[in-house]
């Protein structure tokens, strides 16, 4: 096996035994990128020179006898909506085409402290708005399993680079499914942590009350290791929660005996492809065989999730994106005679159609006379969905659903039909609205395209998710399959 094919915990074991070096690992991954990236297009920026320099520093550090963290010497891909000091950060938008942040996001700072090596910045739907990464202003990332299909989105670049072995770990961000849905499409593991578990400082905001950073990895163990490194209270983020972080590796237990698991009825009904439904029911059956108590659960409010989400997320986005005005940084239209024209031209030239669509939706939802009917009403729906989850978790330890209604769709298939694109997040959006954690793991294939199983837990129950996911993974082989590139 080549080094680039390994997981972080496998590479760590080799580094710990001095069987390899950070430089060898980085060069292996860069070699892989040079072979496959022209097919996949996962990256916006690749830090070739910086990564090799950093790897040499890490090797010196290891040689000096210092203790390794699980991330020491591990190449990490960073979604291009997370600020990296001195490294171009575009959020895949033209409006930030030349933006070089003067600071690091907290999660970036944390993995640098842990000795990880940033290997590059990954492509996304502009400002994380989309479900296919086709909304990037720069490039279309392809699904490594079938280059004619999308990798999902918005963390499509991060999911695709993990599936293609172009990075060992990758950061994603998830506002309505942006980690889990691409994880599902690309056959990798993706976790959206509880809102407040991971600092958002330095994550370019899409919808502040929903955004959360999380890991995209090759297996569940790596997800636990990576979450260990990024989780925790950050004084720079008032919404990050001051709760101690458990060692998530300890929750990697191959045992689901007597756990109560609910299968969400409404997410196996209309709009869900029958082959996906079959994979999910088989997964549920396996967990039952392994000793879990599996039952169907009805959550009638979930069907309002997408509607509420597209009011709340767009409302917050319309405000979050006001700062891109050409005054301070990023793109500024060259041809403006006054400030108003500068605003109009800069934003007209800088934002893509989906971003403009969402700014308009959100602006409308917050406007005088419409606020109560839209924004406030959607907040009430959000509360109802939360209540529905609370009720379910009074009975169940975890809930199951498909991550996405179908496997990866064809490039261009849904670009002219935003509504059908929005509905591909029907199973993931309610989780963001409730602020709870969920993980997507590979659970089968349909026409050689991966299917993802979503496991949902109550707030701060990531340990439970890891336990169920790990048990499933240990008793299946899906995660071992690799796309042919």
């Amino acid at each position, binding site marked *: 096996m080549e080094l680039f094919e390994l997981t972080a915990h496998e590479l760590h074991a080799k580094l710990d035994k001095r069987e390899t070096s950070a430089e060898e690992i980085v060069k292996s991954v860069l070699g892989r990128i040079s072979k496959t990236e022209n097919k996949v297009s996962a990256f916006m920026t690749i830090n070739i020179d910086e990564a090799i320099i950093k790897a040499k520093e890490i090797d010196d550090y290891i040689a000096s006898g210092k203790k390794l963290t699980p991330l020491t010497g591990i190449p990490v891909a960073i979604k291009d909506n997370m600020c990296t000091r001195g490294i171009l950060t575009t959020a895949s938008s033209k409006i930030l085409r030349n933006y070089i942040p003067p600071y690091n996001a907290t999660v970036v700072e944390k993995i640098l402290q842990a000795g990880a090596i940033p290997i590059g910045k990954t492509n996304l739907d502009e400002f994380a708005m989309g479900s296919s990464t086709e909304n990037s202003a720069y490039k279309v990332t392809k699904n490594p399993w079938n280059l004619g299909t999308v990798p999902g989105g918005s963390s499509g670049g991060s999911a695709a680079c993990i599936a293609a072995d172009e990075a060992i770990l990758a950061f994603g961000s998830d506002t309505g499914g942006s980690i889990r849905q691409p994880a599902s499409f690309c056959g990798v593991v993706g976790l959206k942590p509880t809102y407040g578990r991971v600092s958002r400082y330095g994550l370019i905001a899409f919808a502040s009350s929903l955004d959360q950073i999380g890991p995209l990895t090759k297996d569940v163990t790596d997800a636990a290791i990576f979450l260990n490194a990024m989780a925790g209270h950050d004084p720079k983020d008032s*919404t990050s929660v001051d709760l101690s972080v458990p060692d998530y590796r300890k929750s990697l237990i191959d045992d689901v005996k007597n756990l109560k698991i609910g299968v969400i009825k409404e997410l196996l009904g209309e709009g869900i492809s029958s082959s996906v439904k079959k994979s999910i029911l088989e997964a549920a059956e396996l967990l039952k065989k392994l000793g879990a108590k599996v039952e169907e659960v009805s959550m009638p409010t979930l069907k309002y999730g997408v509607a509420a989400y597209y009011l709340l997320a767009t409302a917050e986005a319309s405000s979050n994106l006001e*700062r891109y005005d050409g005054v301070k940084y990023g793109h500024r239209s060259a041809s403006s005679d006054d400030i108003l024209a500068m605003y109009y031209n800069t934003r007209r030239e800088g934002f893509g159609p989906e971003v403009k669509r969402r700014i308009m939706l959100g602006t409308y939802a*917050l406007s*005088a006379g419409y*606020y109560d009917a839209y924004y406030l009403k959607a907040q009430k729906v959000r509360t109802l969905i939360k209540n529905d989850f609370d009720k379910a978790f009074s009975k169940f330890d975890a809930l199951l659903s498909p991550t996405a209604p179908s496997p990866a769709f064809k490039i261009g298939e849904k670009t002219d039909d935003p509504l059908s694109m929005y509905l591909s997040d029907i199973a993931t959006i309610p989780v963001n609205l409730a602020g709870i954690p969920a993980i997507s793991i590979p659970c089968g294939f349909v026409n050689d395209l991966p299917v993802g199983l979503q496991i949902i837990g109550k707030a701060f129950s990531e340990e439970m998710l890891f336990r169920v996911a790990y048990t499933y993974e240990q008793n299946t082989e899906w995660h071992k399959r690799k796309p042919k590139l």
Partner: protein
Amino acid sequence: MKYEAVIGLEIHAQLLTESKIFCGCSTKFGAAPNTNICPVCTGQPGVLPVLNKKVVEFAIKTGLALKGNIAKHSVFARKNYFYPDLPKNYQISMYELPLVVGGHMDVTVDGKAKHIGITRVHLEEDAGKLVHKGAAGLKGSTGSLVDFNRTGVPLMEIVTEPDIRSPEEAKVFMQELRNLLVYLEVCDGNMEEGSLRCDANVSVRPIGQKELGTKTEVKNMNSFKSVQKALEAEIKRQTDMLESGERIVQETRLFDDTINMTTPMRSKEEAHDYRYFPEPDLVPVEPDRKWVEEIAKTITELPGAKRSRLMKDHGLPELDATVLTDDKALADFFEECLKLYKNAKNLSNWMIGDLTAYMKAKKIGIKEINITPAQFIEMLNLIDKGTISRNSAKAVLVKMLDGGKSVNDVVAESGATQISDEGELLNIISNVMSNNTKSVSDYKIGKEQALFFLMGQVMKATKGRANPEAVKKLLIEALKK
């Protein structure tokens, strides 16, 4: 028909915290442009605000002093509007759920007590400053620059009920409020520099009518005097319009003190839709009750209470007490002096009189003067002991203030000591008497006026340094012989 005005004020006070409201940058005024800035206050992509606890403390302190209710749950919102001095293009400000609800301040206007209700006190961030190249304003300039040093400086907005009925009341209220904020040490109260700003909502209605008239909002009043003048101008404008049957338009107007008039700024139709919604990057402000109690304990004596105490305990007339308490620094100096000196009225006379005159002439405040309360009292003691005369003390004080010198040094240099020595005075008196025999005989035949002439001659001979009481006593004795 007779009309009355209905006025409500919105006051913005810059809080005296070391750092900004949502980041650690300094709030210092006058730094080079764009030096007190960071990723947060320049609205870089990805940054988040973190609330400065001191800012909340200051607003709670103010709320308690205004006898308002400290909300158990208050929420910051986003006020969205595009302007280049606002880096995020939204301002974080409390909206539906302010930190302080209710309260009041009682002021005295023309000897009558006036109760003015407080609607709310809330917190928000200040914007930056635009600098226009090649012109004083936007007009005629070749380009504009933004200075973000002020961006994120904490502002406290105080909104009054429409309880104010005259420009005079508005002015007095503003002065009293300023004193309160300065006493609480939450704001420096400087209207000219903009650390205290005031907008007014003004309407006019026939006396006796219950319904309010259409209001206008008046902005750009940057001194107590201009508050009064702007309101007078706006009330007159509205009254004239009503009298001639015209309809008042709801709008925002700017006061122009060069023409003493308000001019339209924007109409209601042009008003922004700010699309307020709760700020998702901050958690609600829920002050712990114990903390509120601790803050209450830090509130020292407020101007009204101090004024009453100076009158009651030290027998000062109201005017003296008012003048002294209107300036907290002056009051502090006065109280320091009182620790060393008993005669409060004499102290007050000197402070309000010669000392204040000196500061006015030099355009400085009491904090900038060169002498300490102890040095000031040393001088008063020398007058009381008769070592220097009241008259010569005036010049001595100026010399002390000019040079930062003690009274003894000044007196020694100028020889301004009073002559009280009987032997020395008797010599001079006998000289004066032998040179003015006519006056001596006039006195002896009962012309009392002659005594004053002779006293004057003694004073002249001593260049005013003779102790007048001693001279009078010795002269009468000598004339009896």
